[in-house]
């Protein structure tokens, strides 16, 4: 009986990888069709991010920077929607910049999703400054002279004609920066060339792949909290009490993670059984 069980495990270990692909496809697809609605508990880093934004006062200048594209949109976009909701609820003055060209389209999508629920006026409550190429040079430009870098906004309106740009000349006129980042340039550049030199508060939401890179900055106090990937977005949505795309993906995320852990366990079980059998042979 034991031998039969071990034989089955060994056979499973050499299954065609396309079977694994099919299983992954099913475990991600099915929970999207039949959601369960698992409870989401915020982690400490998301909580710190939330509190950093929550501590701002009405009328404070809040810069949101979009440095992600369609390839990481499912992870980062939901957190941008949640944070923008939070910012609008607190009546912050929102300035939107983009270090990635795709970031501008992402910003427009987020604005289109959030604006209908609020009575905000462009140029007075929020402004989309848009994308400028140059990576860290752009962050340096914003840090020293925003108006030198952004002579027009995304719609080619002259910057001097936008009311909320009147008293904003450099990064030190901004009360807090929130970077939505998926790589280079992103949060790292904001830390090194923007917020550290200017002494401005910075928080961030990043794609999962970048979390470990940003963690030392968070621990050293250079970044106030991290929203980590889609689970982080779901946690932020829970904290602001507005469920969105992040929450809807959590069931599929949970099941997929569990299945991958089972794959690892099964794969190693096969490895040990085969190793023991080959040792017995010699």
């Amino acid at each position, binding site marked *: 009986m034991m031998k039969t069980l071990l034989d089955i495990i060994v056979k499973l270990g050499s299954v065609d990888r396309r079977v694994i692909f099919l299983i992954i496809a099913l475990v991600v697809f099915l929970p999207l069709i039949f959601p369960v609605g698992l409870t989401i508990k915020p982690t400490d880093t998301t909580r710190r991010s939330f509190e950093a934004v929550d501590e701002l006062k009405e009328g404070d200048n809040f810069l949101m920077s979009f440095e992600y*594209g369609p390839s990481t949109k499912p992870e980062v976009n939901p957190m941008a929607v949640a944070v923008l909701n939070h910012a609008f609820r607190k009546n912050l003055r929102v300035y939107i910049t983009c270090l990635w060209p795709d970031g501008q389209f992402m910003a427009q999508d987020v604005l289109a999703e959030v604006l209908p629920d609020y009575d905000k006026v462009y140029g007075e409550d929020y402004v989309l400054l848009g994308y400028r190429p140059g990576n860290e040079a752009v962050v340096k430009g914003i840090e020293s002279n925003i108006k030198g870098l952004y002579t027009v906004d995304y719609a080619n309106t002259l910057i001097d004609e936008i009311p909320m740009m009147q008293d904003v000349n450099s990064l030190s006129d901004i009360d807090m920066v929130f970077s939505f980042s998926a790589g280079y340039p992103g949060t790292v550049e904001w830390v090194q060339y923007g917020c550290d030199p200017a002494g401005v508060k910075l928080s961030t939401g990043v794609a999962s792949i970048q979390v470990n890179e940003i963690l030392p900055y968070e621990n050293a106090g250079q970044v106030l909290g991290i929203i980590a990937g889609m689970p982080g977005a779901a946690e932020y949505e829970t904290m602001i009490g507005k469920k969105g795309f992040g929450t809807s993906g959590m069931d599929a995320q949970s099941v997929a993670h569990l299945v991958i852990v089972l794959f690892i366990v099964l794969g190693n079980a096969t490895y040990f059984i085969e190793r023991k059998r080959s040792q017995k042979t010699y």
Partner: protein
Amino acid sequence: MLKRQIPLAIVFLTGMATLFGWFVDNVVFETFVNDTATQWFDIIASFAMILGSLNLLRVQGEKVLRRKRNWIYSIFAIGGFFFSITVGFLFRGANYVEISDLGPNQGAISEVIASAENIDPKIAAVTLSLVEENEVFEVSRIFITESGAKQLVDDLNANGAKAEFKSKTWGGHILEKGTLFNWMFVYLFTPLSATMFALLAFFVASASYRAFRIRNFEATLLLISGIIIMVGRVPLGSLISPWFVLYLIVLGGGIVSNSYFKDVKRTFQITTGGILVVTIAGFIAGWSPDSIYFLSFPVLQEWIYSVPNIAGSRAIMIGIALGMVGTSLRIILGIEKSFLGE
């Protein structure tokens, strides 16, 4: 001299100027370094992007002309390139309608606008009611073709309004939603880009199953840390009872003792004893998760994330930074010349 010394001199001058820009307190110098020099950097970087695109065209074109392997597919690459260049530089596809006078028949106008924008006529009527006298109203729908916009102009003028056909400015057309460039971004670029990345999910799962092996202690640490993060970060992790984790620890202990003592009887005794102790403790505590909450996946995950993981990440960060500082100095001083192709 032209191919070597001058580039090295440029690197030295720009590098030193940028470096001193952080320390020198002179307005002219600071303005040059922080504004002008960085603007120039942005502009040259943009030319580098254009170079990349043209080079791609050259490589794919060569494949087609020389009938290299799989040259047929290069036709798609070239076709895609010319489509995006056409949409970016030659065909704006960003036509819209401006109404300078709504006329006397606002009800009919709101119906026409509602039909064009695919919204409820009541919403269109409310929007139009907020338009002040002499204020120009822009219909939000963007038409890719001129004929579509002109048709709307005719419909509005036929109902008494004064409408005009217009096009978004060149440059603005790539950033506005609804233009042909935006259509390309949403329906071509986005699915291609996103799906390429999403494909990796399958390969990660396959690698986890077929390649991720506990061959030594370090690999075990990597695996356990990865599993705890994966399970602890998702909502499912908080549903798993810490008592289950305690049983896993006992089983893990059994495996470790077997590898040390290599005695099946002793392993069985240790494992069974552990399971018994945990079961008795569980009954006494009423299987309450709060009594050993520190063994729950979210708490374990939080500790790994914020203690040993930070230590390792910080060591990596400082190590890389030291290397970066060294390399940057070598580049500025002309010791490192790899960017010249040497």
